[in-house]
């Protein structure tokens, strides 16, 4: 019987991927209670009023209204719950199905270049390296899209612990940013005085934030520019700034900078490659870590991005 099945709240909660309090069945029970109270109220009203027929009809109308609204609410709740579950499953399926061929491609390329390179000439190795780089680009895009999906669902989880942010920055500079910058003869200056305190953040996610902000700085700074990384600290926060001498962000577009998929018009002129997701993700990570991010920018002069991160509490 559907009634008995519906009363199996826990099972339904699991099926729809929501907490028990939001299952349609629970809402049905709540509405039932509301209905009973309404009927009770109506009954007592009849006792006090002199025209029982009038009250009876009014009561019927109230019941009809409650049932109609109730059904609508339950349907809505059920639909939202199902959609929610679909989104979660999509993230899970997409990560696996999109990433599997991508990792397979990158590993084939790695195998060819490192263990099976006998007989390959330089041109052939170059082509294989290209395939590898392109697959890496796709992997990054998939990661960005998945991060955005998780953020939108409120499911981007951070493992906050005290981290050595200086190591984080130096790591990203060495692995990714300095090679990119030197190709354009851009100077990157990080004045690490050795007194950067430990901050409370997620190490991997902070690497992503620095990668996004710094690679933007490199991308949008023309040849022979300069990028400076600085920091300060106040009582509770460390304040970082990344300043470039790049093309800047047009004033009219500055309020859209952190939106999903936004790329300013002057930027697309210089760089067609880019998803417009990096800043959206970076802002989310910083805010979830407990910090803030903001920027100053002038076209053809440059841009400075600033953000704060909570310091480790000293007890």
């Amino acid at each position, binding site marked *: 019987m559907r009634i008995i099945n519906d009363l199996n709240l826990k099972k339904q909660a699991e099926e729809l991927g929501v907490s028990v309090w939001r299952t349609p069945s629970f809402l049905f029970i709540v509405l039932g209670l509301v209905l009973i109270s309404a009927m009770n109220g109506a009954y007592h009203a009849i006792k006090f009023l002199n025209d029982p027929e009038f009250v009876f009809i009014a009561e019927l109308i109230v019941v009809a209204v409650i049932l109609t609204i109730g059904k609508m609410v339950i349907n809505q709740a059920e639909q939202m719950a199902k959609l929610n579950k679909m989104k979660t499953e999509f993230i899970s399926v997409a990560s696996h199905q999109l*990433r599997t061929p991508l990792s*397979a491609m990158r*590993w084939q390329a790695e195998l060819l270049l490192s263990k099976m390179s006998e007989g390959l000439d330089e041109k052939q190795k170059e082509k294989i390296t290209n395939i590898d780089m392109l697959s890496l680009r796709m992997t990054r895009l998939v990661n960005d899209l998945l991060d955005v999906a998780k953020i939108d669902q409120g499911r981007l989880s951070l493992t906050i612990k005290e981290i050595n942010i200086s190591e984080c920055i130096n790591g990203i500079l060495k692995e990714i940013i300095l090679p990119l910058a030197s190709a354009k003869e851009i100077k990157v200056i990080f004045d690490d005085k050795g007194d950067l305190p430990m901050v409370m953040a997620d190490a991997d996610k902070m690497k992503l934030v620095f990668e996004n902000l710094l690679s933007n700085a490199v991308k949008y700074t023309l040849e022979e520019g300069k990028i400076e990384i600085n920091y300060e600290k106040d009582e509770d926060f460390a304040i970082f700034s990344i300043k470039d001498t790049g093309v800047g962000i047009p004033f009219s577009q500055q309020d859209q900078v952190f939106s999903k998929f936004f790329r300013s018009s002057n930027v697309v002129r210089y760089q067609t490659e880019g998803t417009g997701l990096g800043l959206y993700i970076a802002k989310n990570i910083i805010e979830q870590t407990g910090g803030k991010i903001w920027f100053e920018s002038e076209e053809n002069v440059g841009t400075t991005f600033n953000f704060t991160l909570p310091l480790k509490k000293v007890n």
Partner: protein
Amino acid sequence: MAKKILIVEDEATLNKAMGEFLVAEGFEILSALDGVTGIDIAKKELPNLILLDIILPQKDGYEVLDELKKDEKTKDIPVILLTNLESQEDIVKAFEKGATTYLVKSDYKLQDVVKKIKMALGMN
């Protein structure tokens, strides 16, 4: 004596690529394309380490892990979960079931996977 590594991965090209790389690094390779075969080979051959994917036909990685940990002979074999799932729940579940390490395939080059294997085996 060369260390034996069992690769349980249903994507044939991935399974093969991992195998070829590991052979070139001096390991002996066993491979399975599904969970049930994986468990059979593990119990018969007692490899030094198992690379285990989570999404598998017949039995998934978690079920394989459960079986391996239940059997006296296989429960101490280090298991590296190599997968492309990476939600917090997946990772926590993997460690609760006794996985030694959890790696997201698309974040690692084969060379780095080998480093992790050597670490888990206490090599150099």
